[in-house]
């Protein structure tokens, strides 16, 4: 039932009504022709109805707090409650984004230190915290690449190269920045096809976007050669940091030769995903892109006070990317997380994320599943392919994903990267225990049995959730995107 269906004309959640007594003014009379004619039609419900409605809705979600959630490429790890509490101090929540610097030193100190940590962990020269998610970080990065070439008068560099396994945001970002996208094939072992890359680079190449470990769940071994190839052709190297969790404290993108990167703080730095956001996608740059960083960033004066740096300090900046200062609260959470873990803790993140993935991959192969890249070491995630099961039993990766929900586990990422048929991309993360992983493997083994013996149970799954599979075709054809009725029948 929708909240609108609970609405009754004239009902109020009265505690939320402010008193306009004693204002001594004829309210709104001065607004004349600007006045709205009729109410919008927001729900008219009691406070209890709101609380009960949304508490019950929440119960229909899977979430890290309730289920193992090995969603590949999404790094669904534990989000420490302490980091949220630290970032939610009243003084932080009430701080206006345009408060004067003199009254913002506590907040600015956190941001400044976070910049320092992110620089250190990625091996870059400077960081701007302003991008509001991974995709905006990518935008900032690619826009900087564009600005760099333009500043040099290198106007012919109109192409951005991306490996075919790249995340959808990579090509979408390149286009948003006015570039043409050129895809580079990936070898059967999950590496970039170096020959194809060499053939593709040239004077039109603005840069290459990649992530390492790649979305194939393997470490790109020829990264040095790739970097050299692109750099020699005059292009720059963009690092999509969505997979940073895998190598945190182990390998630094800056050392691999990348010129610019973004990080997904909502993945690696344990900010909850909130059912779709918010995120935060700081960008880090090497020497060449320093002048182009998006504003604002935080600097420190000789006397130790912190101050905003803007266009006056960075005249070549690509500019502002948000109304204020990005997703400030997420930055505070990330800062808190970095302080909790410290350097050593960060190193263990990459280590144990990798341990969990390799252990799980091993156990799943023992249970009869096929790895997409069986000759490779898993990183923080890995891919299994159900091509065999699809062929022999007509059970798809999506069927298995849905069936896992019945076992109380969130499904891994399905059908990504596109180049592996019937694939599941699985990322356990470092915060999950061996027991949880063993439980997942047991569920998969049980499903493997079902695929052979009771395939219908798999293809018609899920059976235990609030709804069965939804009619996506109808959703797109009979578009129903807003509730039009105003009162219940």
């Amino acid at each position, binding site marked *: 039932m929708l909240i609108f269906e609970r609405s009754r004309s004239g009902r109020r959640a009265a505690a*939320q*009504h402010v008193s306009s007594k004693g204002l001594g003014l004829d309210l709104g009379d001065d607004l004349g022709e600007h006045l709205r004619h009729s109410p919008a039609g927001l729900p008219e419900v009691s406070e209890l109805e709101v609380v009960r409605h949304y508490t019950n809705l929440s119960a229909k979600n899977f979430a890290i707090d309730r289920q193992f959630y090995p969603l590949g490429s999404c790094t669904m790890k534990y989000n420490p409650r302490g980091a949220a509490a630290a970032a939610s101090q009243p003084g932080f929540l009430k701080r206006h984004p345009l408060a004067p610097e003199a009254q913002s030193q506590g907040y600015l100190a956190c941001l400044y230190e976070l910049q320092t940590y992110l620089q250190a962990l990625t091996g870059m020269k400077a960081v701007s915290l302003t991008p509001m998610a991974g995709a905006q970080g990518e935008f900032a990065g690619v826009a900087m690449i564009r600005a760099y070439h333009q500043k040099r008068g290198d106007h012919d560099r109109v192409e951005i190269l991306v490996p075919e396994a790249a995340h959808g945001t990579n090509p979408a970002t390149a286009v948003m920045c006015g570039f043409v996208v050129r895809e580079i094939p990936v070898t059967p072992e999950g590496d970039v096809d170096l020959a194809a890359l060499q053939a593709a680079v040239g004077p039109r190449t603005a840069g290459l976007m990649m992530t390492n470990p790649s979305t194939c769940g393997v470490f790109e071994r020829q990264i040095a050669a790739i970097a050299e190839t692109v750099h020699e052709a005059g292009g720059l190297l963009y690092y999509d940091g969505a997979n940073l969790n895998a190598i945190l404290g182990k390998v630094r993108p800056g050392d691999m030769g990348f010129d610019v990167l973004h990080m997904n703080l909502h993945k690696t730095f344990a900010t909850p995903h909130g059912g*779709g956001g918010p995120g935060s996608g700081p960008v880090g740059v090497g020497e060449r892109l320093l002048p182009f960083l998006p504003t604002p960033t935080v600097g420190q004066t000789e006397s130790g006070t912190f101050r905003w740096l803007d266009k006056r300090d960075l005249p070549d900046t690509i500019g502002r990317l948000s109304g204020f200062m990005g997703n400030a609260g997420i930055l505070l959470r990330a800062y808190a997380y970095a302080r909790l873990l410290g350097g*050593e803790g960060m190193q263990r993140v990459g280590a144990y994320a*990798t341990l969990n993935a390799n252990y799980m991959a*091993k156990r799943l192969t023992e249970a009869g599943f096929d790895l997409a890249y069986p000759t490779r070491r898993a990183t923080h995630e890995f891919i299994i392919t159900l091509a065999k099961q699809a062929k022999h039993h007509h059970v798809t990766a999506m069927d298995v994903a849905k069936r896992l929900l019945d076992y109380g586990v969130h499904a891994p990422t399905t059908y990504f990267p596109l180049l592996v048929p019937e694939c599941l991309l699985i990322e356990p993360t470092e915060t999950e225990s061996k027991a949880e992983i063993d439980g997942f493997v047991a569920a998969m083994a049980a499903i493997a049995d079902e695929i052979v013996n009771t395939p219908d149970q798999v293809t018609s799954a899920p059976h235990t959730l609030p709804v069965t599979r939804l009619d996506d075709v109808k959703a797109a054809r009979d578009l129903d995107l807003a509730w039009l009725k105003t009162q219940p029948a």
Partner: protein
Amino acid sequence: MPFIPHTDAERDEMLEAIGVTTIDALFDEVPMSLRASLPPEMPEGISEMALMQLMQRRAKQDEMSLSFLGAGAYEHHIPAAVWDLTNRGEFLTAYTPYQAEASQGTLQLIYEFQTMIARLTALDVANASVYDGATALAEAMLMAVRANKTNKSKRIVVAGNLNPHYIAVCEAIVSNQGLVLEVLEPDEQTGTIPTDCAPQLSEAAALVVSYPNFFGGLDPVDALTDAAAAAGALVIGVVNPTALALLKPPGQWGASGADIAVGEGQPLGIPLASGGPYLGFMCCRKAYVRQMPGRIIGRTVDQTGQPGYALTLQAREQHIRRGKATSNICTNQGLLVTAATLYLSLLGDEGLRQVALKSHAGINQLVAAAGQIEGVSRRFSGPVFHEQVLQLPVPAADVVNLMANEGILPGLALGALWAPMANCLLVNVTETKTSDDIDHFVTHLANAIEAIKSTC
């Protein structure tokens, strides 16, 4: 300390199962030359207790006792239930609702949000949010260029009384695709956009109107909308959602209404929190829905025919269409959508209207009282929503500094944005301000002006 559950024994068991003896061995595909050591800049880990002590100290440092600063982010009362529920683990720690069956809670909530925003703006459809108000506008511009089949142009005409940071953000984003922004200067007296702008609108892809405008004033949206429609330009309204409880919604501007409306959702139950996370909302006429970026939830049925909710029109999105998507947006501001939906549910039509009315009455009261101070007057004529520019007899920046030292943020000094407005202070009042607060403000303002006058 990392949040890693492994005991040493378990780690060893796992390594043995894999067939290696150390975790380091799992990194054997990483060239040795690339292996990093611990950067010295990284601090040692601390306990949650030490973290809380540190952050409490820092947060306290920045506390203010009273604020009249708005300028795009507004201090409203947030009902306690909003974040009690938003912070439930089931909302907080879920991913984007790709697995619809395991995400009906979030999906239905977004559908309800879309409905609320569509109703508030009187437009047909809304998306599930973009980053913030500024980026929502940038996306709307790109969308308008794609959607406008009459004027096939990359020129966007922008009201000059729009939040200047929004203009800056749009420049940074849309110029990469060759869009050109052309700014309409507001009237000196009223601060609103003159209705005789037809020449500029001709051949433009869209006109962007801010309602209320950055100075708090109310532009002649009906006339502007009609002028744009006549010129074949789409109309993009940048609106304050609280104001829409009181003011004419974009869908009802002029003869045929605005085409796209965007805005900053922060006033809907989201704390100021230094500027984010907030949420950008976007809505439009149904005809343009396939050009809208961001996630959209549709109501459909499951295999048994019962209603359910799912992501729809995904062919607009990067994860399906990659380079051909309407935008690169992926992660959006989901949790803030949850908060805004709760806020709007708790307030309802009448509650939101009262918030708007009290804020409106408050700014009028403040301006009247401040006007009693010698040399203080309204900078612009005409009605405002809940914000107003005061003309002071001294530099506004000095006033801000003086008052901030006393724990009061009096507003935004406009000199940094427009040099001729050095003596102008943008002041906001919301329903959170009592008459005492306003009196307090006026007293301190008078003192500050006096103090500055006497030192020069």
